[in-house]
Every structure is written in structure tokens, then in C-alpha cells.
């Protein structure tokens, strides 16, 4: 049934990096929405020693982009035309302040200077705008430091441009990746030894992350499979036995996939990366069965082991991190399915898969003194390393982009910083009001605070002021005209002056159809978004109601910090729960003995992170539960005293450790840090179980 349901409803794979961390909750949806809106931007940088070749490459590049329907067209012609028709509704903030304060003489002086300024290009002719108010307003919108987007550095020319994916393309990882693939083809086609084209920005990161993840998934799967097949063949000397082992792994992985697919709206690509470790960890149950051959002897150990491991993975559901929830469901369902196959089906058909009995010589007899010495050394390392550990919740530290992409980002940032006042450090202000007019009025109130504090921002009300403001500006201009126009504008004819003095009030109304690009500022009709550049003082909005400050990088990091703290609080109840379960099955003393190796394994792994100056993130904390789940298995099987458990534990530990080692080699910091700590934790747990639990 699961198979039918899943096969008829295959969902697209999610590749958006942010969605690995954020959930589909309303609170997170806003963060994702804001980040996606701003991260639909693709930054393009052209580099050449020859500016003409660079311009040709840029023109060709833009032609390709303009021919595609996947990108937003930023056509301001209609807005500029309409704004010129309603020029009296606009005033630069400084001019409005002076007119309000009645400083007419100063305004007149400044207007004369602008009028006679030989190098100022007026936006409207003097007969329509004798005081150059509209030109001043346009200048107040201009954020560029230079007239050109081109800089020169080390004898090379650099030009930065930004293009933007359409909303519907940016929202879909699959469509976005298809568009980026085409863009990369254009980049490759137009790049030559004379002109280099760099592309960067969030969609490019997502594209590379997903394509790299696909390669890594395939590679890890193949290497894990070869390792598992090689190890089984080496031990059992039979190819036939590989059939039930590989079948159980495949069925386990499929069950994990189908259930995850049913529960979550989409599966993140990093879940698939992690799920490759299922090959190494789900083989354990089959190995225990085939090495021992008698299910009755191992059923208790196998069941307790499955419960502790599945329980540990289910703890990930409390993490409030989408990726970890998916990993939790995928792996625990996969492991439970393999357990069921081993317990229910293997005893029925194992005679059909003959294999040679074999025993490895794994006994390394250590003297008590040596054991104590090794224990003292390891505990000494724990004591030395643990105080050095430090936490890091910065979301940026969880993703390290490829070198080329990082270099492109750096070059683009440098070029942008030299040509524009805009920065890559962007935060948002979500403004709410009862209707559109009140919304614009509120934006204008906030704008005054921002301008007074010298902050740069972009907002809808800058382009379409509230009706209230449009009315006020026209009144200010009309009053000023009545006072000064006749004496100032001696260069105008009487009729031209009369026309200006008698001009009727007009209003520019926001229209989504006419100015589609301005709709980016609105999340709905009563909610708008102001974009703040290099802003770091949200306290200034404390007294303004219905205003919500969002800095995605800081907010996501705060979310991760919150999750980390929640998970830290869960550790003690988890230990107590595990101890109680093991006490019920064994005794309190034995339970303590069984928990000890994995607990020490956790402590030593974290101490090693401290010694090597690696900061601890949420993913490391969550790995504690997994190490406890896996690590206690080794102790449980060793403790069971079953004849061949030593070999089964060694083999299953080897496959698991190898899988997590491969995972630690992946390019994604989120996943590789989880893989690395699990690799360390399982290895040290196994070593402690050898030292602390006697094989008898």
C-alpha cells in the first residue's frame, strides 16, 4: 500500500539550503519567503583586460537572459512616465523638510544653483519644474556611488550586474535548477580567455549544492555497497548470502523513503545524502543473524539494540529542524523494516543461502594494567578537551561554499561596494496596517526615523507615496509657488506660470498590473516589506506598533541556538529513559555498565572537537542521541555473551563507522559535521566497550 501510494505521488526533491533548516510553519514560511525573495537574485560579474570585449560579452549575456521567460523584466519606463505626469506629488525628504519649515529663501537659492548647474541633467524642463524638485527627488533615490558599474583592479576591468529569477521559478527548486543549468551553459559559451564571467548568488549555491549532492549520493552508495559486499564475501565466503543481506538493505531504504515521502511535503536532498549511511547501519541486524544463526539467542539483544537506535533517531523529531526530522523518520523506518525482515523472514529462508562457518581471530588480550593505562589516557583527554569546547550557532558556519563560488562572491562584493551604496548585508522590516493607505503612511513614518539615523533603505512608499503625503507635497509646492514663482521664474512666460499656479491636484495610485516589480515590496495588501542596508539598530522601532524586524541570518542562527538549547535539555531525560529501559530489561548495575561506553564515547568525541578547536553546533548535539543509540548496541551485544557476538559487533561497527566516515567527507558542512561526530563517537564507543565490558 505504501509503495502504491508513494509511487502514484512522487514529490519533487527539495534543494533549497534554507529549507534544510526551516520548517513549513507560518513563522518559518515568512523567513523562507523573505530569503527566497531576496535570494532569487543572481549576481553576474564580467572580468576582462579589454573593456570592449567585456561589454560585448555582457550584451550577449543579457540578450540570452532577456530572451528567456524565466527572469524578471525590470521595466521602469511606465513608472517613470507616470511619475513625470504627477511630478508635483514627489519631494526629496530634505526639500520637503525645508518647505515645511518655511525656509523658502534657502530652497530658492538651491533651486537656482541646480537650474544653472551646467552638469546637472534635469529630469523635467524648467517650464514644468522650474525649481528642479523632481530632479532632486530622483537624485535622492539614486544609491550609486559612481556613474558606472565598472571598476578596474590589477589592470583588469570588472562589471557587476544583477538579474532576478521570476517568483514562480525561484520558489521551485527544480525549475530554478533547470534555469541555472541553462545560464551556466550561456556562461560557459560566452567565457573565453579574454573575458571571464562569474555567476554567484543563492540560486547558484543551491544548484551546485544539489548537483554535488547527487554525485556524492551515488559515490557513497557505490563505495558503501562495494565495501559491504567485499566484507560479507570475505567473512562468509559466499556470494549467495549477499542476496538476503542486500535485499533487506534495499527494502529498508525503500520503506524509509516511502514513509518520509508520505509524511513530508517534499524530501530534502540532504536527507538522501544522509540516508546513504543506511547501507552501513542496517546491515548490522543481518550480520548478527547470519553470524550467530540462532535467532533465539540474539532476539533480545537485537530488539533492545533496534529500540535504542530507532529511539535515538526519533529524538530528532523534537529538533524542529526539517532536515533532521526527515533523517529521523527515514532512518528509523529503514532500520525498523530491516529488523522486521531479519526477525520474520530470514529464519524462513536462510537454508537457501548456504555459507561457510568462519571465525576471525579478533582476540587481543590486554593486561589489566594496560587497560587501566589506556582508560586513564582517554579520560585525561576528556578532561583536557571538554573545557575547550565552544558552541557556534551561526548559520553561515554550517555551509562552506566551493572555492570558485566563494571567490566569485568576494569579487562581486568588492565591485558592488565600490560602485553602489547597496550592501550584501540586508535585513527586512515587515510593516502591517489595516489598509494600503495606512501601510504607506506607516512606511513614511519609519522612513523618517531611518533617514534621521542615516540608514539606507528601499521601500514601496519611496516610489508611490501615501495619498496623504502626495496631498501634503502638492500643498507645500503650491504654497511655495504662490510665494516665489513670480519673482524666481522670470524665464517663464505668464501663461507657463499661470499653468503651474493653477495646476490641479493629481494622485498616483499603486497598481499591481502597471508596476509589477513594485509588488515585490508587498507580502499581501496589508503587509509590506522595507529592505534595510547595513542596518544594525532594531531598537529604534521599539515604539512603533505592527512592525517586525527580520534579519534572516541572525534570526535563523537564533532559531538554531534555540533548538540547540532545547536539545541540550533533552539529553538528561534521554539518559534517564535509556537507563530505565535497560534497568527493566537487565539490572540497574548492568544498565549503568551498558550506558558507560557510549557515554564516554560521546564525551571523548566532544573533547576531541575541543582539542582541535572545532566549535560545536546543533548537529553535533543531536549526534549525542545517535551515538548513545548505536554505541549502546555494541555494549549490549558484547554483554549478551553470545558466542559469536564479538565478531558480529566488530563487523557491524566497521560498516557503520565506514559509512559515517564517508559521510564526513561530503561537501555539505551540515551533513559532514554530523557524519564526522558519528564516526568519532561510534569508534570511541566501540573502544570503550572493549575496555569496559568483558566478552564473557
Amino acid at each position: 500500500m505504501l509503495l502504491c501510494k508513494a509511487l502514484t505521488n512522487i514529490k519533487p526533491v527539495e534543494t533549497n539550503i534554507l529549507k534544510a533548516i526551516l520548517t513549513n510553519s507560518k513563522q518559518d514560511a515568512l523567513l523562507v519567503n523573505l530569503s527566497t525573495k531576496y535570494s532569487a537574485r543572481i549576481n553576474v560579474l564580467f572580468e576582462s583586460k579589454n573593456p570592449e570585449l567585456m561589454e560585448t560579452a555582457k550584451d550577449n549575456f543579457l540578450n540570452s537572459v532577456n530572451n528567456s521567460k524565466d527572469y524578471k523584466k525590470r521595466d521602469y519606463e511606465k513608472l517613470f512616465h507616470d511619475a513625470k505626469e504627477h511630478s508635483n506629488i514627489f519631494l526629496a525628504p530634505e526639500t520637503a523638510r525645508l518647505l515645511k519649515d518655511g525656509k523658502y529663501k534657502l530652497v530658492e537659492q538651491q533651486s537656482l544653483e541646480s537650474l544653472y548647474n551646467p552638469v546637472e541633467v534635469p529630469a523635467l524642463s524648467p517650464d514644468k519644474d522650474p525649481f528642479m524638485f523632481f530632479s532632486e527627488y530622483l537624485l535622492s533615490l539614486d544609491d550609486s556611488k559612481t556613474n558606472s558599474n565598472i571598476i578596474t583592479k590589477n589592470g583588469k576591468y570588472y562589471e557587476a550586474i544583477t538579474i532576478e529569477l521570476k517568483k514562480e521559478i525561484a520558489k521551485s527548486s527544480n525549475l530554478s535548477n533547470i534555469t541555472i543549468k541553462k545560464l551556466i551553459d550561456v556562461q560557459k559559451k560566452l567565457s573565453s580567455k579574454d573575458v571571464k564571467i562569474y555567476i554567484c548568488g543563492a540560486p547558484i549555491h543551491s544548484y551546485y549544492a544539489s548537483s554535488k549532492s547527487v554525485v556524492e549520493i551515488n559515490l557513497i552508495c557505490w563505495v558503501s555497497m562495494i565495501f559491504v559486499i567485499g566484507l560479507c564475501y570475505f567473512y562468509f565466503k559466499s556470494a549467495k548470502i549477499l542476496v538476503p543481506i542486500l535485499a533487506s538493505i534495499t527494502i529498508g531504504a525503500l520503506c524509509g523513503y516511502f514513509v518520509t515521502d508520505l509524511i513530508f511535503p517534499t524530501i530534502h536532498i540532504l536527507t538522501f545524502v544522509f540516508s546513504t549511511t543506511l547501507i552501513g547501519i542496517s546491515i548490522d541486524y543481518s550480520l548478527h543473524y547470519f553470524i550467530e544463526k540462532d535467532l533465539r539467542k540474539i532476539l533480545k539483544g537485537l530488539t533492545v539494540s533496534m529500540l535504542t537506535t530507532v529511539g535515538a533517531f526519533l529524538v530528532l523529531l523534537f529538533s524542529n529542524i526539517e532536515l533532521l526530522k526527515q533523517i529521523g523518520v527515514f532512518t528509523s523506518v529503514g532500520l525498523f523494516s530491516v529488523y522486521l525482515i531479519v526477525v520474520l523472514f530470514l529464519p524462513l529462508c536462510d537454508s537457501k543461502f548456504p555459507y561457510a562457518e568462519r571465525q576471525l581471530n579478533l582476540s587481543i588480550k590486554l593486561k589489566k594494567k594496560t587497560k587501566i593505562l589506556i582508560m586513564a589516557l582517554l579520560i585525561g583527554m576528556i578532561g583536557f578537551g571538554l573545557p575547550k569546547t565552544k558552541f557556534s550557532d551561526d548559520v553561515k558556519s554550517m555551509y562552506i561554499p566551493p572555492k570558485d563560488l566563494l571567490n566569485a562572491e568576494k569579487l562581486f562584493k568588492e565591485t558592488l561596494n565600490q560602485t553602489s551604496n547597496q550592501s550584501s548585508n540586508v535585513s527586512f522590516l515587515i510593516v502591517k496596517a489595516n489598509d494600503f493607505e495606512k501601510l504607506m503612511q506607516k512606511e513614511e513614518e519609519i522612513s523618517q526615523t531611518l533617514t534621521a539615523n542615516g540608514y539606507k533603505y528601499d521601500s514601496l512608499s519611496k516610489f508611490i507615496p501615501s495619498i496623504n503625503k502626495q496631498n501634503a507635497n502638492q500643498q507645500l509646492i503650491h504654497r511655495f509657488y504662490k510665494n516665489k514663482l513670480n519673482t524666481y521664474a522670470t524665464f517663464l512666460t505668464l501663461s507657463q506660470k499661470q499653468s503651474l499656479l493653477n495646476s490641479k491636484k493629481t494622485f498616483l495610485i499603486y497598481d499591481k498590473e502597471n508596476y509589477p516589480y513594485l509588488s515585490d515590496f508587498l507580502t499581501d495588501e496589508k503587509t509590506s516589506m522595507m529592505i534595510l542596508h547595513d542596518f544594525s539598530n532594531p531598537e529604534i522601532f521599539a515604539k512603533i506598533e505592527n512592525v517586525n524586524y527580520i534579519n534572516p541570518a541572525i534570526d535563523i542562527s537564533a532559531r538554531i541556538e534555540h533548538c540547540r538549547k532545547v536539545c541540550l535539555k533533552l539529553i538528561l531525560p534521554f539518559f534517564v529513559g535509556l537507563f530505565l529501559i535497560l534497568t527493566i530489561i537487565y539490572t540497574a548495575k548492568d544498565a549503568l555498565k551498558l550506558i558507560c561506553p557510549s557515554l564516554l564515547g560521546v564525551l571523548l568525541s566532544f573533547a576531541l572537537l575541543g582539542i582541535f578547536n572545532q566549535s560545536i553546533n546543533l548537529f553535533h548535539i543531536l549526534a549525542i542521541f545517535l551515538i548513545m543509540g548505536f554505541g549502546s548496541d555494541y555494549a549490549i551485544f558484547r554483554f549478551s555473551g553470545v558466542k559469536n557476538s564479538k565478531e558480529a559487533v566488530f563487523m557491524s561497527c566497521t560498516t557503520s563507522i565506514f559509512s559515517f566516515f564517508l559521510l564526513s567527507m561530503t561537501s555539505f558542512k551540515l551533513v559532514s559535521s554530523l557524519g564526522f561526530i558519528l564516526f568519532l563517537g561510534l569508534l570511541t564507543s566501540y573502544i570503550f566497550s572493549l575496555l569496559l565490558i568483558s566478552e564473557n
Partner: protein
Amino acid sequence: MFKKIVVYFIILLFPMAVSANVFDYPSSSKAISQKLPPLKSIACKFTQEKIVPNSNVVLKSGGDFEFIKNKGVIFRTTYPINAISSYKASQNKRVNSILVAISNKNYSGINEEFDLFYEKNNNFWVLGLRPKKASALANQLSSITIKGDININCIVINTKDSGSTKILFDSN
């Protein structure tokens, strides 16, 4: 006095004759940078005429002009008002950056926003700049014409609504 009149005639009328249809001669930044003489720093007088559309009124002004190579232009208007327009002010950056680019023979910035035109006759040259269709400037500006010999002699800025500004430089 006669000499002065002749000089004015050469400066103003001759290049204008040359430039009558500079926009019939499209060119490239590479070609222009090879042909155009390098411009040096200079200080001279300037006069400006701004034509008000839909009337016969011409706003006249004048004063001292200074061109500092690699930095930009400073216009010290002395009549009818006293004012300074320096390359440091943001509203002057567009025309300023064009002049600096021409003096440095670095047309990459200009090429980005304008289609280029060039005509030369003897020692007099005319450079025409017309905003590219995709450029935001195209809504505001029709063309810029710059004329000169070893120095810039005249700049004509034509705006979309038929307004026009002519700046003349007297470097002699």
C-alpha cells in the same frame, strides 16, 4: 578684438559644421580611444545656454571652468548667481564621469550606457553619446555631444522633452 572674434568663430562654428550629423557615424570605444587626443588639465572661462522648451527664453550663465585630469570638473558660476558645481557633488557625477573617462581614454563606463558616435575633421573632433535603449538614462536624455580639438570646446546636452543645454569653453 578681431583676433578674438576669429578664434570664437573657429571654436564655435567650425566644429558645429563638422558635428551636424555626428550621429550618422557610429563608432566603437576602441576606435575612439585611438583617434581622440588625450586631454590635459585646463582652466578657462565657460558660458552656458539653457533653452527653455515651449518658449524663446534662453537661460544664460557663465564663469570659470577647471578640468583636473583624473578627478573631474569644477564649474564656478559667477553670473547670474555665484555657485560652485564640483565633481565631488553627487548630482554632477554623470557628466563629470563622462569627461574624466574621455580624458583617460577609458570608455568602458560610457560604453555601458551609451551608443557611441565619432566624427573628425582636421584637428576638430565630435563625440556623440546616445543612451542605449535599455539604459535608465534613455527616459531622461536624448543625446550628449562633445566637441573639441586639443581641449573640449563645447558640450551640448539634449533632454527628452526638447530641453537643451549648451556649454562653451574659451581656452584661449
